[in-house]
C-alpha cells in the first residue's frame, strides 16, 4: 500500500485494468493464430522453418518484429529523451548493421544451410567439433538476449500494469515465460512468425501515430521540436550534440567506439535473426526479406528520434528518471501525455507484445540449435529421425522457458542494457568472423573456426566479467551502477564496458592464426559444393507444399 501511494504520488500511470485488457486481446488473437499454425508444425522443416513458405515481405516484417525488441522501442526512445543525440547514435548502429546481413550473409546462408547457423559453419569443416562450438555460441547469445528481455518485462510491470512489489513482478515474468513456451511449442516457427508480424505492425502503427502527433504540435518542423526539447532539458542545447552520455573522457569515448563496432557487426551474427532466412523459399526471397526489414527498421528508428525528443519536450528528463522504470518509461509517459489513458494502454500492450514476441523468437532459435545441432548431430551422430528431433526441440523449449523465467526473476533488478550489448558483442566476436571466413576464404579450416568461435566467445565474456559493468562502477551519488550492487566489491581491471573493440579483432585474428597453423587439408569437394551452392542456389532447400 505504501509503495502504491508512493507511485501514485510520483506519477499517474493511467488505468492498469485497461492496459491489461488490451494486452489480453493481443494474447487471445495471437493464441488463436498459433493454434491454427499448429496443424502444420509436425515435421522438422515445418517446425523450424515454417515449411519455408513465407514470402520476402512477410518475413521482412517478421524480422523487424524479432529485431525491434523492448530495448529498441523503449530503450532508444528513452535514451534520446534523457541523453539526446547519443541515443540516436545507438539506433544508427542497429540499422547500418543490416547492410552486412544484406550484402554478405543472408542469401549465401539461405543457400547453404537448412535450419541453424551451425549447418553453414560445419558445411565443409569437421562436423562434430564445429557444430558443437557454433551451438554453444548460439545458446550463449540467445541466453544473454533472453535474460535482458525477461528482466525488462519485470521492470516494466511497475509502470505499465500497476503491479507492485517483487511477487507481482515475478508472477508477470512467469506469465510471459509460460505464454512464450505455448507459442513456440504449439505454433513452431510458423506460429512464432505470425506473432512477430502482428506485433511489428502494431508497434509501427503505434509509433507512427505518436510521431505524427508530436510533429503536428510543432507544425511538422523538426527544428522547432529540437528547440523545444532542448529548452525543457537541464543540459540545454547539449542534448542536440553528441557525447553527452559517452563524452566524459577518453575511456568513455573508446567505450563508445567499441559499442559502435559491436552493434554494426553483431546483427549479422544473431542466431534468431539468421534462422529467419530459412523460412522463405529461396535466396531471392531472403534478399527481399532484408530489404523489407531495412525499410521497416529504418523508418521505425526515425520515429524513435521524434518520440525521444518529443518525450524530452512534453515529459522532461527529470520526470522520466523519477518514474518507475526510469529511462524505459519515456515512451509510455509520452503516450499518456498525448493520448491519455487509452493511448497509454495501447502502447503498454504493444511494449508487452514486443517482449513476448522477441522472447518467442529467441526460444525457437535456441531450442532448434539444441535439438538439431547438439542432440541430433553431436549426441546421436545424425542417427535420429526428424520427428524425434522435433519432439526434443519442443521439450527444449520448455526447459529454455523455465531457465528464462528463473533468470528473469533473478535479473529483474539488474541493469539490463549491458546484457543486450553483451549479446551483440558475443555475436559479433564468436559468430560473424567464422561465418565470413567459411563463406569467402577457401583455406579456412576446423582449427580456425574453433579458435575464432571459442576465442571470441571466451574473450568477450571474460572481458565483461572484469569490466565496470559487473563491478566497481560508482555513480556521482555514490550508488553502484554495476551488476554487483555492493560497492566494496570491485574486481574490475578492464576499463571498457563493451569488449567488442578487443574481442572482435581478436576473433578475426584467431580465425586466421588457427587456419594457417593447422595442417588439415582443404576439403576441395565440399568447398566447391559450398561455393557453387551459395552463389547459384543450386541444391538449396526448397519450400514444402502442403
Amino acid at each position, binding site marked *: 500500500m505504501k509503495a502504491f501511494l508512493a507511485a501514485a504520488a510520483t506519477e499517474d500511470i493511467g488505468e492498469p485494468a485497461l492496459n491489461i485488457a488490451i494486452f489480453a486481446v493481443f494474447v487471445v488473437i495471437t493464441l488463436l493464430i498459433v493454434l491454427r499454425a499448429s496443424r502444420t508444425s509436425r515435421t522438422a522443416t515445418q517446425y523450424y522453418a515454417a515449411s519455408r513458405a513465407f514470402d520476402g515481405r512477410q518475413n521482412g516484417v517478421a524480422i523487424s518484429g524479432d529485431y525491434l525488441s523492448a530495448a529498441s522501442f523503449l530503450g532508444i526512445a528513452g535514451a534520446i529523451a534523457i541523453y539526446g543525440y547519443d541515443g540516436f547514435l545507438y539506433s544508427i548502429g542497429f540499422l547500418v548493421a*543490416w547492410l552486412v546481413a544484406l550484402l554478405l550473409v543472408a542469401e549465401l546462408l539461405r543457400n547453404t544451410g*537448412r535450419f541453424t547457423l551451425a549447418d553453414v559453419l560445419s558445411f565443409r569443416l569437421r562436423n562434430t567439433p564445429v557444430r558443437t562450438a557454433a551451438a554453444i555460441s548460439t545458446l550463449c547469445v540467445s541466453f544473454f538476449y533472453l535474460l535482458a528481455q525477461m528482466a525488462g518485462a519485470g521492470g516494466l510491470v511497475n509502470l505499465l500494469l500497476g503491479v507492485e512489489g517483487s511477487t507481482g513482478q515475478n508472477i508477470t515474468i512467469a506469465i510471459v515465460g509460460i505464454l512464450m513456451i505455448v507459442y513456440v511449442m504449439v505454433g513452431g516457427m510458423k506460429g512464432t512468425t505470425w506473432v512477430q508480424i502482428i506485433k511489428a505492425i502494431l508497434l509501427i502503427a503505434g509509433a507512427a501515430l505518436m510521431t505524427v502527433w508530436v510533429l503536428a504540435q510543432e507544425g511538422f518542423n523538426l527544428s522547432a521540436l529540437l528547440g523545444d526539447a532542448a529548452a525543457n532539458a537541464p543540459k540545454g542545447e547539449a542534448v*542536440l550534440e553528441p557525447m553527452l552520455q559517452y563524452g566524459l573522457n577518453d575511456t568513455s569515448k573508446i567505450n563508445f567506439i567499441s559499442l559502435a563496432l559491436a552493434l554494426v557487426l553483431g546483427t549479422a551474427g544473431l542466431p534468431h535473426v539468421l534462422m529467419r532466412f530459412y523460412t522463405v523459399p529461396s535466396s531471392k526471397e531472403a534478399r527481399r526479406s532484408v530489404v523489407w526489414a531495412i525499410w521497416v527498421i*529504418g523508418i521505425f528508428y526515425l520515429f524513435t528520434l521524434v518520440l525521444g525528443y518529443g518525450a524530452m519536450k512534453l515529459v522532461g528528463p527529470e520526470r522520466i528518471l523519477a518514474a518507475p522504470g526510469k529511462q524505459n518509461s519515456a515512451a509510455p509517459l509520452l503516450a499518456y501525455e498525448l493520448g491519455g489513458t487509452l493511448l497509454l494502454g495501447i502502447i503498454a500492450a504493444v511494449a508487452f507484445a514486443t517482449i513476448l514476441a522477441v522472447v518467442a523468437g529467441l526460444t525457437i532459435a535456441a531450442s532448434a540449435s539444441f535439438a538439431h545441432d547438439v542432440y541430433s*548431430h553431436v549426441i546421436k551422430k545424425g542417427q535420429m529421425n526428424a520427428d524425434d528431433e522435433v519432439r526434443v526441440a519442443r521439450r527444449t523449449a520448455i526447459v529454455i522457458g523455465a531457465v528464462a523465467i528463473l533468470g528473469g526473476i533473478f535479473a529483474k533488478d539488474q541493469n539490463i542494457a549491458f546484457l543486450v550489448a553483451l549479446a551483440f558483442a558475443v555475436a559479433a566476436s564468436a559468430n560473424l568472423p567464422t561465418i565470413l571466413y567459411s563463406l569467402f576464404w577457401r583455406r579456412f579450416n576446423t582449427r580456425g573456426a574453433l579458435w575464432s568461435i571459442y576465442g571470441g566467445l571466451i574473450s568477450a565474456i571474460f572481458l565483461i566479467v572484469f569490466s565496470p559493468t559487473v563491478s566497481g562502477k560508482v555513480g556521482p551519488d555514490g550508488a553502484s551502477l554495476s551488476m554487483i550492487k555492493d560497492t566494496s566489491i570491485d574486481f574490475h581491471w578492464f576499463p571498457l564496458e563493451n569488449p567488442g573493440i578487443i574481442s572482435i579483432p581478436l576473433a578475426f585474428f584467431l580465425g586466421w592464426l588457427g587456419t594457417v597453423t593447422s595442417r588439415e587439408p582443404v576439403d576441395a*569437394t565440399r568447398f566447391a559444393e559450398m561455393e557453387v551452392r551459395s552463389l547459384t*542456389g*543450386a*541444391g538449396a532447400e526448397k519450400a514444402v507444399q502442403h
Partner: protein
Amino acid sequence: MSTTPTRPSGGSTYEEVQSSAEFTELRRRFRRFVFPMTALFLAWYFLYVILAAYATDFMATKVLGNINVGIIFGLLQFVSTFAITMIYARWADREFDPTAERLRDHIEAGEVQ
C-alpha cells in the same frame, strides 16, 4: 554430414562447375560489387562514429535553425543505408540473378561445360 547434398545429376561435379568460366565470372562480379560496397558503408559509418566522438564542435555546428551537422550526418546514414539497399537489390535482380539462375538450371540439368 547428415544433409544429403544434391549431386548435379549429369556428369559434371561441383568442382567442375566451380572452375568453369561462367561460374568464375559470376563470383568475380558478385565480389566486385559487394566487397567495395561493404568497405564504403563501413568507412562512412566509422567516419561518422569518430566524428561524433572526437569532433563534437564540428557536429554541433548549426545549419538550419536547431538542426546541426550531427543531426544531418545521422540522417544521411539513414539515406545511405536505404540507397545502398535499393542499389544492391536492383543490381542483384537485374545483373546477378539471371546468370545465377541460368547456371543453377544448368547444374541441376547436368549441362555445365
